């Protein structure tokens, strides 16, 4: 288990900083190496339970006490 602290004002900035901190995340999350942030198909990033793809994408603004969650490709039923 690892932890870190980063400051970010948008979802894209947060992902960029996390990937820079934990390099192994790059392959797992991104189609291309940064600086472009293009999430791989099946990767879900939620802001307070809403998928950022249906908010403002990478430009989705973050505020104090927001919760961002990242999920790998998942299926079930």
């Amino acid at each position, binding site marked *: 288990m690892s932890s870190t602290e980063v400051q970010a004002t948008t979802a894209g900035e947060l992902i960029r900083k996390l990937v820079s901190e934990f390099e192994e995340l790059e392959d797992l999350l991104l189609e291309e190496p940064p600086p472009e942030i293009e999430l791989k198909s099946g990767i*879900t990033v*939620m802001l307070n*339970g809403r998928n950022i793809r249906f908010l403002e994408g990478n430009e989705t603004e973050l505020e104090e006490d927001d919760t961002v969650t990242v999920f790998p*490709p*998942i*299926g079930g039923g």
Partner: protein
Amino acid sequence: MSRKILRIDMESESLKFEDLPEDYKYLGGRGLTSQIVADEVPPDCHPLGPNNKLVFAPGIVTGTSAPTSGRISVGAKSPLTGGIKEANAGTSFSQKLARLGIGAIVVEGKPSGAMYKCLKLDKDGVQLVNVEDLSGIGLYDAFAELRSEYGEGLGVCGAGIAAELSGANSGIAFNDTEGMPSRYAGRGGLGAVMATRGLKFILVDDEGAEGVEIEDEGVFERGRKKLTDALTEHDVTKPGGALNSYGTSVLVNIINEAGALPQKNFSRGSDDRSAKVSGEKKSEEIKKRGGERPHRCSPGCVIGCSEVWTREDGGDPVGVLEYESAWALGPNCEIYDLDTIGELNRQCNDLGMDTIEAGNTIAVAMEGGVKKFGDEDGALELMEEIRNGTPLGKILVNGTEFAGKAFGVTRIPTVKGQAIPAYDPRAIKGIGTTYATTPMGADHTAGYAIAPEIMGVGGEEDPLSPEKAELSRNLQYSTAVIDTTGHCLFTAFAVLDIPEGLEGMVEEVNGVLGTDLTVDDIPEIGKGVIETEREFNKKAGFTRQDDRLPEFMREEELPPHNDVFDVPEEELDRVFGDLG
């Protein structure tokens, strides 16, 4: 060897084989069960009366080496919904039936006596034997006794105590690869249709069987390879992928985060305690205590989403705890303990009940004050009421809507009398559109909009957008086709994203049947199946008012997103546009 229909009249105890009619030649699985029910069952008959029929059919490619294709469809007029029903399960039973050349078993007639029978089927013929001594016995013991007496490797299916009580929540259990009654054609009360025909069990022995006839081995093999490659490549279905590693309960955390995991009888959409019943937590426990993960529901599955859940000491295996079961018997009743959920699931398997319906029934009973939410012992006591056939048990065994009415509950989460599964439609509206409009009653598997709405599989759709008619319709058509081929619905995760996989599935079917279908034919074939089913329902008295979600979901906001189900009625009617 062309496929046969085995027709059993339980009143006269006559058994006969018929050639599969020309009209049914290209059907299997759901396509075949629904067609036979539509052709032979009067839509206005009483589901438990003499005119209903129970139909079993393996899929078109079931019994071959096609990957993840061990499904059996079971159809009848449903005692739960009053409409047509198809429920399917993954089990070696289906593969054995197909290898014996059986396209379908049709069980008809209603005997006047109460002597339960077991149908035994092998390459040399069929016979009915008395099994009255297995009446009133749980299915774990009954399956073990039958396999001990007739052969450990046999395929077994059976109806349980819930079916003997004529419960509208009684499923049909099939053997898993351990021989336990954990694979269910659970939904819609089909167990009661079986038991009221006087049939309690079916045993299938495929030793020495000729196997499934394949018209063009080359085409079949090409298709099989393409589909296998897609399944082993896609992130969701591949070895070490989400389903293989954590099972279907891998959904608990993401659906909870999306605010769509119903808690306390659909009162809110998330709760931090849900993580205690997640697939990740369950997988960790299995590593510690024993059991098995991954596991396969039937031989030849390349996904392996199943598992064997046990008690804390690693003994007394239950079988799989699916996402739906863990939710229904867990968070929906405010129960967040995997061991309690495991024991409730064991009771459902043993009594012969659908876990989704049972969990919802317990939740409405809790809302009605029969027990308190979160009362783990109380929930298990309700299962004993059913086992003992008490008046309370006889209410509970009839499912969520019946129990809700009996206990004065107005928030009853059902559509067409069938309980809503583990995705709150106020937070994921495409699945709500499927719940409302599928001919099956609330059924997530009928058009699994969760794939594009939550997982980003097969496209991406905003779960809160109310424009979902086209999405649900397309998914319902393609699902009807997958259910007809005999493939598991989870193959859709791969074939929706990998075109070669879908081509492979069609080529497998062409190889078996000698047809020249293309991917473009899929929607039309699926449409045909759904139209047959909806026409049956229309004749049974269904109108567009039956294609609606419960009032409380349209009016009561669901925390944390505080949304209601606001897909307009016109949008729901636009899915099929066929009911008056």
